């Protein structure tokens, strides 16, 4: 896997942008979607190697998408990390039942997110420090 595709599915553009900036040191191609429908479309079209999935999005919500993915041969093993404000046991149990790789509650601890991505995609590479561009978002970028 040279450059894995990571889909960031969240209805808030600012959250997608911040996650993308935080992960910009990773050699990966980032895709974005902002509704349940566009997330399903992007998964079908792009076959991402990892999905960072919000739960509360314009329908269908993230847990329904996860359940649908697990019901298909193509996406039954695609790693999915849930990133949501929802932390109820009901949602966590549902995510676990459908084999989510991790469940992170917003506001996300970015080091935890990076560790979780590296666990889901153990072959992912980092961009050498000298080639990194200056991030637009100045805050919340963890020190490597």
């Amino acid at each position: 896997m040279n450059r894995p595709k990571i889909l960031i599915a969240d209805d808030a553009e600012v959250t997608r942008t911040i996650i993308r900036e935080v992960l910009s040191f990773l050699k990966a191609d980032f895709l974005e979607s902002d509704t349940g429908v566009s997330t399903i479309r992007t998964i079908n079209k792009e076959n991402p190697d990892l999905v960072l999935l919000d739960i509360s999005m314009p329908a269908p919500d993230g847990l329904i998408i996860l359940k649908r993915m697990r019901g298909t041969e193509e996406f039954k093993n695609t790693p999915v990390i849930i990133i949501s404000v929802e932390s109820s046991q009901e949602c966590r149990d549902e995510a676990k039942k459908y084999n989510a790789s991790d469940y992170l509650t917003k506001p996300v601890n970015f080091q935890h997110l990076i560790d979780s991505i590296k666990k889901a995609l153990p072959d992912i590479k980092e961009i050498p420090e000298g080639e990194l561009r200056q991030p637009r978002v100045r805050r919340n970028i963890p020190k490597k």
Partner: protein
Amino acid sequence: MEEITFPEIETLEDLLVNAVDNVFSTMLELKPVYKQTLSAEELNGNNSPFYALGSKDPLIVGSIGFTGEANGVVFIYIEYEVAIEITSVMTGMDADELKEEMDIIKDVIGEICNMTIGNFKNGICDLGFNCRVTLPTVLRGNQIEVNSIQSAERHAFCFELFNHPLVIDLFVQKGGQ
């Protein structure tokens, strides 16, 4: 089965102050200062605790609901200029550049509301009242006031950020009431 008592105001206050602290410090490296909580009686029929604290228009109001074993709606009031500052900190864009970028401001304030009230709501869930948040709505306007919901408890939590008020107006009741 023993009925669980709905949380007292002191518990709600702790949950909300912790939620604000957690979200603003993690996402913005800011710390709004908690000042006071006003009850419905103390508001004395005033539909806007925000204006009562001397704030000026235009303002931004984020609203978000939660439903389940606890039902409620929360309105977060800030002045437009403060919303621009928050958006600037979160996106790295210049405040001047943001003045006409209402979509970006709405997106940022909506997500801050979502995280803050989501954190608060998760605390209520942990006390045994399972509920889920709705999608946030953000409005910009002048003279925005919200009428009390008669059957709900109302508390206005007053904070200060950049020396301006930030008010979180909570209407809450136990589910099934």
